[in-house]
Every structure is written in C-alpha cells, then in structure tokens.
C-alpha cells in the first residue's frame, strides 16, 4: 500500500470529470479509424474544448511571425518578414534579459509589456486609470484564478471559505476552488431570460450559504461560459452594489471580452462600471479582473498567457500578494509576448495591418455566421432549445429529454447528458461537452459546443448533431 494513501482528503473531493472519459473515447475512436475500423463517419470532430485552434481556426500571422522571430533572432534580417514584425521583435528582445526569450522575467512580467497592458485597459475603459502596479501577467487565466483564490480561500479553521459561483459555470474554476479546499456557493443563472444574472438569486444563495460557510467572494463570468450571455451595464452595477453591501471580493472572469456577436450588446468591463459608479463603490469594492490570450481572436491557449488586474486591494496585503506571485518566478515569456501584441496590435499604416485586420474580421464573421447557423438549426429541431448566443465561444442548448431516457441513463449509472453525448460520439463521431460538467438546474440537461471553428466545420457539426438528434428522438416515440 502506498504512502500516498494518506493523500489529502481535500483532493479526493475534486469532482472527477466525465468529460475526460468522453475525451479518451474520442481519442480511441480516432485511433480505430486510423486502423481502418469501419464507421459511419470518416473522422472525429471535437468541439468539446474551448480551443479555437483545435477547432480549426488559424493563428494570427503577425503573432506567429513576431514570436518566431523572437525565438530565432536570425529572422530579424529576413526579407520575408514585414518591417513591423522585425521592429516589434527587436523591441521585445531588447526588453528581455540577455536579449533572449529564454530568460526569466520579473515577477509581474516584462515591465514594458505590463505598461502596454495597463494602457490597453485604460483605453478599453474610456480613459479610466490603470496602473502597472496593480497588474500581474500570468500563465493564463486559470493560473490567475488559482493564485487569486489562494489569497483568501482557507479550508482549515472554523469556517470554510465560500465563493458564489454561477450555475452553469466554467468547470475548471469549480475544480480549482475544490482543490484549494473552498466551497462553491451556487447561484443559478436564469435560462428562460437568456441566462441573465439576477441579484435576487445572488441574495438567496448568499443567505443559504451563511451559517455553513464563510462567503468571501463572488465569481462572475462575462461574457458567459458556457452561456454566451453578455451582461448589461445595469446588471453589472447591480452586482457591484450587491458585492459592496454584502462585503464580497469580486472575481470578474472577462476572457471572452472580445467575443460579442450580437451588435445590440456591448462588453463593458467591471472595472469601468465600478469607476463610473463613483465613491463609495469605486474606492472600496475589491475586484480582480482576468483576461487571457487563449480566447478571442488570438486563441493561443497553448502559449499560456493572461493577466490579472487588482482594484482596491488593501495596501497592507499588496506586499504579500507580490511575494505570492513571485513563487512562479515568472510566467511563460512567449505568452507575455503574445499579450503585448494583444494589448498593442498593429495599427492602420503598419505593413502588417491589412492582413491582421482582415484575419480578425474573418474570425468575427465566422463566429457571427456560426451563431446564426447554430440558432437556426437548433431552433428547428424538436426537443432541443438554445438561448440567444450574445457572446462567448459556445452554444449551450438544453436537451428536453423524455423520462425514459433519464431512466435509461440512471440504469446505466450515467448522467443523462453524458449518455446523450456518448451516443452522439459513437454514432456520429461528434464530441461535445456534457452539461453536467458545468452545473445546471436539477432535472435539466444540456450540451456545450464550441463555435470557434471554420464555417464548413460548423455545418458538419450541425449536420451530425441534427441527424443524430432526430434519430434519437424518433427512436423514443
């Protein structure tokens, strides 16, 4: 028997992901197909990950050219690369110790890049001040979340730290919270109203939680994952007011800020709204806002890059926060470089601008088109319904499964949406995410599809899904 049998019970409590089992099966099927096993489809399409490149979208040329040049500075003299690529690479290398991306950087990140990020934030927020002193570049928003949660989540002591968490949510947040020994205080988003966040629901959830844990923070995802909801300014104000009244630290996960599809919606940052609300909110509500290079137009999930900006941190804790972040030594340098481009992209007049803006426009159009197609196709299918996808990278339709399916799933020891997803995978080679991974109201079932994929792939996805769904529903009648 292993020593590690004494493994911390807290870790056993991290929910096992059924998605992992589905992912393994998807990989197995791919191997079977490669070995010539006959199936009703030629390949597996995987839209279960929030990964644009895996979905088939291409990286931005400027990003890859700059990163490649930073990696291999001999390219600085290459005529094949545009002048602005070379200039950017040269400037960034000049900020790396020893002129190499292989060096550690300072804890916060390369100072000029942190400065760029603060300027980006300020510009985004219509001039609201942003200081590099409050920003840390990290190896992605998941890392940011874990670092920030660790600051206040305690599992020892009288009361376990609670964090108000949306249902449905981003499953890795829930896992991170569990791993740290905190507890989730679920608040339900209102599906019938496009997954709206309602303050009464926050209040209800908090009221229930007090007495069995110590709620300290409120986690919001805007635009929503998996819901695609984009919060209105008023909604954000209400949440801020609630956080102030109830003394909660606000964690604003804003990684999908560049993904707003509905022209009538607009992303507005929690920070901006906070400042525009003025005192006492603007100088007292504690906020950590997160952004990442993994989503939006960049989709560079593998590079691992993002940042967290803190607002209204107590001055006495600032030093500890800095030491805490310095334990990572630094975040991946290539991620920092990509973040610099995100904060300060090519501008009109730069040689790379036409290609860069064309690529962005093309991704935007693809996503907008995909949103329409998804809503059209799902709208026509019986037994499946989807709230309007205002933003984000996913569709999260509800499956209206008849009781016999629910029963069948129970007998198989599976959640109904996992059963549905498994059958979908086996019969059509389409891999989606099961709704139970994200949390959902009791008795409801969903699947999650990533819509960041080329249009023809989206068509294929929708074909496979509708073919399967119709067959599935007719089998039951």
């Amino acid at each position, binding site marked *: 028997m292993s*020593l590690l049998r004494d493994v911390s019970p807290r870790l056993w409590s991290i929910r096992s992901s059924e998605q992992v089992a589905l992912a393994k099966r998807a990989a197995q099927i791919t191997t079977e197909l490669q070995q010539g096993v006959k199936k009703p489809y030629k390949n597996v399409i995987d839209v279960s990950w929030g990964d644009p490149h*895996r979905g088939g979208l291409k990286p931005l040329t400027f990003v890859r050219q700059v990163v490649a040049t930073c990696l*291999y500075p001999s390219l600085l003299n290459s005529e094949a690369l545009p002048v602005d690529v070379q200039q950017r690479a040269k400037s960034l290398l000049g900020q790396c110790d020893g002129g190499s991306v292989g060096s550690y950087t300072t804890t916060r990140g390369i100072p000029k890049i942190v400065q760029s990020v603060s300027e980006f934030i300020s510009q985004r927020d219509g001039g609201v001040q942003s200081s590099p002193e409050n920003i840390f570049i990290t190896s992605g928003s998941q890392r940011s979340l874990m670092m920030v949660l*660790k600051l206040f989540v305690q599992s020892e002591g009288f009361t376990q730290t609670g964090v108000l968490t949306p249902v449905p949510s981003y499953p890795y947040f829930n896992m991170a919270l569990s791993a740290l020994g905190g507890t989730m205080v679920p608040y339900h988003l209102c599906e019938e109203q496009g997954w709206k966040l309602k303050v009464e629901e926050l209040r209800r959830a908090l009221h229930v939680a007090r007495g069995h844990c110590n709620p300290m923070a409120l986690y919001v995802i805007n635009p929503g994952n998996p819901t695609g909801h984009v919060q209105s300014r008023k909604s954000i104000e209400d949440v801020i007011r609630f956080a102030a009244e109830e003394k909660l630290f606000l964690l604003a996960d804003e990684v999908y800020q560049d993904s707003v599809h509905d022209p009538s919606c607009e992303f507005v940052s929690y920070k901006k709204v906070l400042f525009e609300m003025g005192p006492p909110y603007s100088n007292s509500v504690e906020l950590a806002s997160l952004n990442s290079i993994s989503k939006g137009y960049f989709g560079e999930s593998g590079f691992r890059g993002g940042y967290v900006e803190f607002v209204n*941190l107590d001055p*006495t*804790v600032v030093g500890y926060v800095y030491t805490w972040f310095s334990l990572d030594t630094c975040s991946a340098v290539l991620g920092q470089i990509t973040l610099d481009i995100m904060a300060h992209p090519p501008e009109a007049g730069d040689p790379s601008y036409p290609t860069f803006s064309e690529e962005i426009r093309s991704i935007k159009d693809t996503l907008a088109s995909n949103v329409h197609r998804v809503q059209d196709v799902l709208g026509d299918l019986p037994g499946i319904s989807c709230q309007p996808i205002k933003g984000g990278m996913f569709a999260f339709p509800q499956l209206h499964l008849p009781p016999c399916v629910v029963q069948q799933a129970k007998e198989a020891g599976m959640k109904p949406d996992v059963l549905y997803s498994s059958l979908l995978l086996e019969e059509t080679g389409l891999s989606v995410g099961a709704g139970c991974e994200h949390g959902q109201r009791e008795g409801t079932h969903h699947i999650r599809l990533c819509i960041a994929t080329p249009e023809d792939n989206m068509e294929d996805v929708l074909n496979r899904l509708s073919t399967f769904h119709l067959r599935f529903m007719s089998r039951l009648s």
Partner: protein
Amino acid sequence: MAENGVLHPERVLTLDTMNPNVKRVEYAVRGPIVQRAVQIEKELKEGVKKPFTEVLRANIGDCHAMGQRPITFLRQVLALCTYPELLEDNKFPEDAKSRARRFLAACGGGSIGSYSMSQGIELVRQDVARYIERRDGIPSNPDNIYLSSGASDAITTMLKLLISGEGATRTGVMISKPQYPLYSAALADLGAVQINYYLDESKNWSMDASELRRSLAEAKKHCTPRAICVINPGNPTGQVQSRQCIEDVIRFAAEENLFLMADEVYQDNIYAEGCEFNSFKKVLFEMGPKYSNKVELASFHSTSKCYMGECGFRGGYMELINLDPDVKVQLTKLVSVRLCPPVTGQALLDLVVNPPQPDEPSYPTYKKERAAVLAALADKAKMTEEIFNKVPGMSCNTVQGAMYAFPRIELPQKAIEAAKEKGQAPDMFYCMTLLEEKGICLVPGSGFGQREGTFHFRMTILPPTETLKVVLEKVEEFHRKFTEQYS
C-alpha cells in the same frame, strides 16, 4: 480605516482574513535584496551617482540573462513550429524541419497554440521515456511521466498530494539545509512541517545517513514525516552526490517509509573530476527488487538549466516510480486543474530529450555549442572556487556541479551586532552592504538555511568569464575591507 480623511469600509482581503499560509511564504531569490538591486538600477538610470556604473546580478540561476547563447537547433525548431510558413524556407536544415512537422502533427489542429492533454502531449512523454532509458539503461513508461510548467510546478503538485493531517499527524517533509527556497516556500504555503537535515559542509556538502536519522527522530515527536527531498546536483551547494550517498538515502527512505523526491534539474551540469551524475532511479533499480519494487520515487527535470538555460519557456517533467494506481488517478485529476503546461515548453523538452544524432546535419553545431556552454561553466566553477579560497575569512567547497558557489564567510562580531541593530540577518547585512558599495547582487545564505552561527552567500557562476573575474575580485576587495571595518 480612514484615508485622506475619507472613511473606507473595511476590505474583504486584509492581513487578518488573508490565507495565513500565503503570509508565511518567503522566496529569497526574489526577496528584499533583489528588490533593492532593482531600485538601485532605477537610480542609476536616473543619473544618481554611485561607486559603480551597473549592478552585477549574480543572484538568480538565469543563464541567458548572463549572456549564455541559446542552442541554435532548439530555437530553429521552435520557430518552425510557431510559424510553419518557415518550413518552405531553405535556410532551415532538414532535421529541424522534420522535428517541427512531427511535433505539429501531435498538436490539436496542427497548432502549437492548442491546449494539450493535462499530462502533456503523448509523443513528448514517449520521447522523454526513451531519453530516460538511454540515460539509465532501465525501462521507463510514458504513462508515469507528467509534463509540467518547469520542475517547480511538478514539485508543488507532488507536495500537494503528500500533505495532509493535523497536529501530530501533519505531514512532515525532509529537505536539506541549505536548500533551494522554493521548497520552504511551498511547504509554508501548503502548511506542511519542514524537517531540515544538514548537509555536511566539511565533506563537500554530502548527505549523511546518521544526520538523516537524527533529523527524522526529532521530527517524529511533532509531526508525521512522509517524504524526503533531495537536490542532486545541489542548489545552492553544487555538490554531486556520490553513488554511495544515493544508496544510503534510498535505503533510509525504504526503512523509514518515506516518499523520495529527487530534484535532478542540474543533471548535465557536472564539472569536477571524479564526479558523475547517477540518477536516483538508476541507483534504485540497481539495488535490486527489494528496493526497486518498494520505494516510491518522483524524479524531476527541467529545460531551465543544464546547457539549454531556457528558463522563460517553463518546460519540465516528473517521472513517478511505484505510485499507487489509485493515487495516480488523483494526481491526474489534480494536474488537470491547471489545464496544461505551455506547449512551447513541451516542444522544447521534446528536443532536449531527442537532440540531433551524429548522422544528422545539425549535429556538429549542436555538439559544439553544447560542449562550449558546459566547458565554460566548468572553467568558471573552478576559477570561482580557487579565487574564493585565497581570500582570508572565506572558504569555498568545490563547485562540483549546478550553477552556484556557496562560500562560507567569517563575519567579525561587530558586524554581527551592526546587523542585529538593523534587524537583519548578518549575511543579509553583508550582502546589502556589498550591493550598496560595489553594485553586486548576491543572495545571503540565510535565505537558503545554514548551521547556526555560520554565514554564507550564494553566487551564480553564470556571468561571462571576464565579468565573473571582475565580480570575484570586487567581492574579494569588499570582504577584506568589510572585515577590517568591523574588527
């Protein structure tokens, strides 16, 4: 709490509500002395007059920052992976291109920007397993290999698994004194009990079984020891453990039922004659089934050190031996929480474990560059030891490996008192004064741990030879003056 006469409601996150483990964390390598160095650099830039024109940083094991060049082949393949259009460019050699194609085929959507599986890309883990087999002559299973974001990520993951209990059952973890302060920081963060075992300075910092036993016996009184961490080659001490020492530690771990964590990130950095790197895994298996079937071992490696020095990529792995299958399930779940290690780091690691072969076009250059880096380090290690040992009041053990010198310094009583008045550890006071007077940034031994009443500092041997010579001379000058001043 009032600020500018305006009343602010109390914050949610305060010193009182903050996670006490976070408060306990200290990390000397990035600590106050480095922060002061940064300040001084700023002042120099602003034109403030000082007795020196630049700060010489010998505090952190960052090779490229000190002028070491990256290995051409590695960077070529990474550039090709990043911007595959370069595959059409005939300035890149064929072996670099074929490696890039092979790696990209293993990435989601053929892009290095996709997430990978949390355990790391299977192709890379297979290559790592083959590397380990070649190195040790012992089979290695890719399934027992977990890629990580630098070795630090893997080390803290294993510590998370190990730490549990309360009071007398609280996990104790043995770590050397001196040690690399990531360990003490991680143990503080995770609320584990740190159990120190002294390395023997009189025997070139070797481990000693009787000292291990002493430290363990003492610790058992107030915690439940579950693991022992060993750094070989050592940081900050630079010793390369003898095969005999390694066997002793393995035997000790087996007898005392301890999980063995072997930090081997400096495995290629071996300089002194008569020294050779023996992996814990190899020695374990050569000791036969009595040990190799029983002792639970995690060995760690990284792309940050050796001849590559690619700290900024955050590449690394751990190999697990004899891990309980149920615990492995928990481990796999735990690593999935952090999504995946940087894919560029995984690509780099793949190249490190699968370098150009003698029949490949890039081989001559690769071999030359690698040899040059390691030879330069060996020369600098020797030079450092020689120069320091000539200084009265300083003694430096042979820098057998790794990247640091950790000389012992004798401090006059008056200096110790002056330090006390300032509320600083004596060697911190010494290093701060050195920084202010000579612009040289070193890390005091108190940041790594040392026997009571002894003082040391850690200096890297990374600056280019000429610069290093200057640093050594200045330190020597300073030491003489400091000793005189405080006699």
